[in-house]
């Protein structure tokens, strides 16, 4: 076999490994119901859920509770299927949670509780202000 063919094969093998591993390690955007089902089936894979904070009639976020000394936080999130779910986060409240227009939580159900490892926030005002 020619050297270039061997190299070619190795390159293809690495590329295929990368693609397969990407799809294997990739997480997924799910709803809370789907995430719950996943956990029921004994899968501990971390997934992404997209949604918003629960808002009261005046549009203020509601259902946010800081833990003792504000070392942790829990909040009620509404996913895109309008399902409400309390999310627990073992870190101090992220800087711009209250102002976020969209919340993405990365985590899974553990003992019937949704535990977030990471929160990604989309804020209307992060770089551009829209109100005086």
């Amino acid at each position, binding site marked *: 076999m*020619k*050297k*270039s063919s061997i*190299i070619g094969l190795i*390159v293809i093998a*690495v*590329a295929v490994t*990368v*693609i397969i*591993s*990407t*799809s294997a*390690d*990739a*997480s*997924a*955007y*799910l709803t809370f119901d789907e995430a719950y089902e996943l956990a029921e089936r004994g899968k501990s*894979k*971390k*997934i*992404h859920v*997209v949604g918003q904070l629960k808002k009261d009639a005046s549009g203020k976020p509601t259902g946010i509770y800081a*833990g*003792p*000394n*504000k*070392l*942790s936080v829990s909040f009620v999130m509404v996913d895109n299927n309008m399902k409400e779910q309390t999310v627990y986060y*073992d870190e*101090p*409240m992220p*800087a*711009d*949670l*209250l*102002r976020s227009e*969209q919340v*993405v939580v*990365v985590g899974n159900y553990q003992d019937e509780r949704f535990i977030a*490892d*990471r929160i*990604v926030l*989309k*804020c209307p*005002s*992060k*770089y*551009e*202000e*829209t*109100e*005086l």
Partner: protein
Amino acid sequence: MIHQSLGDTGHLLIIISFVTSLVAAFAYFKATVNKEIGTDSWISFARITFIVHGLAVMGVVSVLFYIIYNNYFEYHYAWSHSSVNLATHYMIASFWEGQEGSFMVWALWQAILGFVIIKTNKKWEAPVMTVFATVQAFLASMILGVVFGDIKLGSSPFLLLKDVINDPIFLINPDFVPEDGTGLNPLLQNYWMVIHPPTLFLGFATTLIPFSYAIAGLWTGRYKEWIRPALPWAIFSALTLGVGILMGGYWAYETLNFGGYWNWDPVENAVYVPWLILVAGIHTMITFKKSATALKTSIILVIATFILILYSTFLTRSGILGDTSVHSFTDLGLSGQLLIYLLFFLAVSIIFAVRAWGEIPSSEKEASAYSREFWIFIGALTLCLMAFQVIIPTSIPVFNEIIELFGRVSNIAPPADQIEYYSKFQVWFAIALAILSGTGQFFFWNKMDKKEFANAIAIPLIISLLLSAIIFVAAKIFNPLYILVLVAGIYSIVANANILIKLFKSKSYKLTGGSVAHIGIAMMLVGIMFSEGYSKPISLNTLTISKAWTDEQNSTNLPLFLNQTSYMDNYEITYRKELIEATYLPELIKKSYVDDTEDPYYKVARQSILINGKTYAEPGDTLYFQTPENTYYQIDFKHRVSGKTFSLFPRIQTNEQMGSDVVSPDVKKLWNRDIYSFVSVKPPFEEELEWSEKVTEEVKKGDRFFVNDYVATFDGLERVTKVSFTELLGDDIAVRANITVLAEDGEKYLAQPLYVIKNGRVAQVPDVIKEIASKFQIESINPDNGSVTLGLNTTQKDYIILKALEKPHINVLWIGTLVMVLGFIIAIHRRYIEFQMMRDKGVE
């Protein structure tokens, strides 16, 4: 007053720059087709047009900076990115905080680089500048801000506030100008924000040069000749882009408290990938110059670098990363335009390459495993695979968009733990690269066969195995993967140093660029292995701080009570003070020395402020604070054995733009490790306090008493004529008690509770001294025996919770960075001299 003409001028200049770039592109195109060189008609016309274009770009930049600098908040850009209380260097930074400004920086660099090309290379000017001017037209279109029917072309930085924001105030008063802007995000108020973006954009801009040469070569049939002038620029580009990326990493490490210097965030990946491809391209270009192989590969890699820069621009600016990145720009509605920009140059590159492909010389002979070409080719291939591994997962949001474009639903998300996911692959590529960069050196300088190679490699190999063995025993490294990284890294350093010494012996200093850069990269690899692989918390603690925390969190966060010494690592550590930064004072001052006023930027001194024997403020003096949002916590460290001391000042920023607090670390650099510490929980004093039951104390002037175990002296009552909360009239009376408390280290605190009789009603105003966790109140004044009854409450002492990490041998990473930069500079010098010599001979 609205400075309307200023914005109009700016907008006009943008239009001029857009039109002139199009005209210059056309004229240079004509000049290329007519094969003009030097002072022919199309080329002179094109040159003048491009110079006008460059001046217009500079004009746009000046106008926008003028608006920011003079606080013309009637302009949306100034209002949303700057403010009155911003230092001048941060006004420069606010220029590129927004997308429009950062496009302008990019365009400015490219205009300047265009001037350099016109000046230094007449022979290639026409085709190269055709590409340049076209790219400039695309960039200018991003800030054009012109609407054709339903299509909005670009977003202008010269929009007036009233045209952007719907607020009823503009109906009442169309000329309303806000007093102050909303400012540069305090988190970004850091010197890195001043130097990192322009460096990165210079890196972006310079990738255009090798790309333009490659396209020019394909276009004019000079398939080989483009390499020589392009090579020094390609190396310069890799240098600036690399430095820009590393600056970002250092910034993240030092200020932003991301925990590390690299987080595999999509925005970071988006520039890392083109850098890898560019470095691969430089290697194949060098092989081509030596032996006329790898020409096609070089063309592909140089083109791919530029296309990937455009792709990264698209990713970070189109809003597509919205869900996945913590720091991409907000969407300005330019995604369509950005996509056209990317696809246009992709199409142009493919067309030119396909047209010329059959004519590009390539060698049919297969390279031997004992040749330089073979090793460099494998190295370049590894770099490409390394880039491929990163770009695929980073592009997941793009795949989702594409799938959704075809009406399907896709719910793939990027890997949940990015750092772990990318690291586990990248480390293997890095090991391979270290081995290749060491081995390749033997073949680079001499032709070798199997036997000669065995002889050449034997000694360096033995030395590096020995060295690694010593290091891994001394540093107690037992993880097999890390041992492998260490051996590969040391091998690369030794093998390259071996060549370096030979080059020094033969006095060929000019040729040392490659081996120096390789040593730098290998040092970086070793530094990353130590500092990331062996980063560990040293703020160990056996108490349960909070039940809501995991065991891991509880055991690695250390509570520190004010002035109470704890033990951490080899140090006695003590939380001493809470400090703030008064703008015109030489040092930070204690927060308790000043009282707030209604304006957050001004505070009033409670007591005289003495620094190094000089009095800077008397009680009642007003001081200016440019950054009142920042609080620093002084923590004193004393080494348990040597007794050496130092202090760290981690910071907490009350960041209203971000909605709450932002934590920044302070880092102590020791020769063998960094101590990286930050306040993970700020003092509870800001919140509501639980006070003990009140104790009363009846005292006369001069009496001493205890409060919270401190000795206090009552210095008597004093009548005051003014109080801050109400106006005193007629029969109203206000007195205050002066109480001095002696605390640790001879520090004295003055407590001044007030007793006010207004309209016959009594008001008691307590005074809280945070440092001794006590509240003082005048309960009653007893004229019969001349005494005063004080009410005293105490509370838990002020504390912070500290988290400290040890980052071993991180200095090896930073030193490696500098060595790599040096290597690049040597290489640029060598390749530029080569180009100059050939140019002056008239070859190019």
